[in-house]
């Protein structure tokens, strides 16, 4: 549906460097990356707000690289709403139809429908500055969708909103995505947002695409240290990998040997997600290939969950619920066992 080929653009401190990417029809796609990674510029390039230095952009198999924004048929929603402050909510939403010289009665009808859909009909004659953040973002969405774009581009649409409004809008985004048969590309730096919304994710790092895949792939198999660190894997440990028995790889960190089902040799990093590690106070027999005895060195009370650091030669971070924590009667210095499956050890 959208095909980006070797796209590059260098402007001031912003940079897009040889990005190639394909986004499928009706997909909910998320660009995830830290601030300053160029993800907003990539989105604006798709919308035609910049001329790329090189590369091509196709929408529906049509080369739109040199099309101005008004000819691309994309809707755009910004973090700060960018409503026209001198126009009412109604006039803002009607803007795209007025440009298209749509019949006045039809405009009223369509804008009315849109306002109903987003529950903002009562705000029709208010000016943007009198609205809450959530109301403004709904107006911005209605304004973008009324021209029935093939693609909806959203730049950090939730970042300026409070937690409750954010969750409401996440639900509305999902609804829009289903009801409008629309391709959505959303930019965010918030991994939780990406997890809740995206079908596929591209991790953007310094103007390049670091990894593309389903949320689960990116989350469970981060491709490099940057992705792992960005998506929040806590355990990143170095070691030397050698072929082990039973088709497994043994990784020697100097202090412990960890087994993995992945294949790689030489100097490697491995990651294990905190929730893949089980903790117990006595040695138990399970199917986990990796089991180590160590000392509990740190306890962080994070409210909903407790985060522990266990030293078994290497430091491992793991999480558990408060109830499990209470049941195990853990305290600092206590001797504990940790175990994790060889399939949970991700090498790179």
């Amino acid at each position, binding site marked *: 549906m959208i095909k980006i080929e070797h796209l590059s653009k260098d402007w001031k401190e912003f940079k897009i460097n040889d990005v190639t990417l394909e986004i499928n029809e009706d997909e909910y796609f998320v660009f995830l990356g830290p601030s300053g990674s160029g993800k907003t510029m990539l989105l604006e390039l798709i919308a035609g707000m910049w001329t790329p230095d090189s590369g091509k952009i196709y929408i529906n198999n049509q080369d739109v690289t040199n099309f*101005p*924004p*008004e000819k691309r048929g994309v809707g*755009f929603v*910004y973090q700060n709403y960018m409503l026209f402050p*001198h126009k009412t909510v109604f006039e803002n939403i009607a*803007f795209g139809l007025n440009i298209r010289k749509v019949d006045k009665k039809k405009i009223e009808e369509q804008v009315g429908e849109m306002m109903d859909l987003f529950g903002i009909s009562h705000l029709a004659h208010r000016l943007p500055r009198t609205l809450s953040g959530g109301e403004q973002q709904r107006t911005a969405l209605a304004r973008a969708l009324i021209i029935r774009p093939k693609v909806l581009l959203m730049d950090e649409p939730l970042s300026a909103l409070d937690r409750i409004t954010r969750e409401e809008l996440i639900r509305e985004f999902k609804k829009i995505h289903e009801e409008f048969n629309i391709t959505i590309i959303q930019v965010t730096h918030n991994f939780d947002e990406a997890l809740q919304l995206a079908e596929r994710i591209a991790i953007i790092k310094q103007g390049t695409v670091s990894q593309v895949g389903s949320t689960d792939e990116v989350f469970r198999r981060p491709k490099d240290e940057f992705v792992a660190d960005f998506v929040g894997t806590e355990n990143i440990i170095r070691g030397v990998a050698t072929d082990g028995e039973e088709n497994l790889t043994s990784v020697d960190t100097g202090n412990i040997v960890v087994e993995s089902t992945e294949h790689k040799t030489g100097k490697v990093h491995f990651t294990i997600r905190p929730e893949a590690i089980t903790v117990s106070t006595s040695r138990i027999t399970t199917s986990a290939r990796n089991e180590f005895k160590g000392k509990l060195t740190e306890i962080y009370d994070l409210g909903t969950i407790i985060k522990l650091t266990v030293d078994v030669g290497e430091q491992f971070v793991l999480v558990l619920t408060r109830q499990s924590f209470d049941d195990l009667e853990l305290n600092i210095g206590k001797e504990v066992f940790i175990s994790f499956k060889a399939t949970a050890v991700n090498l790179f």
Partner: protein
Amino acid sequence: KYDYTTIFFAIMGSFLVLFILIPILNLMVSSNLGAISANLHDPQVISSLFVSVYSALIATIIALIFGVPLAYILARHDFFGKGLVESIIDIPIVIPHTVTGIALLLIFTSTGIIGAPLSKLGIIFTNSISGIILAMLFVSASFVVNSAREGFESVDPRMEKVARTLGSGTLRTFFVISFPLALRSIVVGAILCWARAISEFGAIIILAFYPLAASTLIYERFVQFGLSDSTPVAIILISICLALFIVVR
């Protein structure tokens, strides 16, 4: 409530405020209403006020026509030589007024490189309203450019980008989004431009002593008849300027 440093600074600062305020207030009260009203019935005064007000208005309109597009370019684009263009726009502020008059006269006199061809078309700049407008435009255009630019810079370019995605072309986006949102700054710039134009004297006196502009008339009266005869005209002119200044604020 305030510490000694603040009080000391406030006292120092008051001197400057009073130094500006007192002469103006003193001027406003230093002539009787009879003299002012007599001057308001003097056809020479009326005609000179008309010359000043009208020329400043034309200069402002010309500054708007050419200055607003320039301001938009400066607010939205980076280009090679941008710093140079900005400097050129600001230069008239620092050029001595009589030098401005000399520089304009050299080029717009009927033998000057621009004045010569135009004089064949019947457009004369020496001692004509055109010359006054020319001098005023030169010294005041930067106010329109700088103020309008500030106005455009306060309009988020992403707002224009959104309008573009909604189907609006660049020119239409300018007139429907950017211009209305920057209008306040443009109006302020226009009024400042007008006031600066009316205040000019040095360049006008060299380029076009006649037809008498109000500031030239004040000077002529002062030289010929002395302080008391020039004061009423000064009061009338300053009243017009201050009224407009208060509107801006």
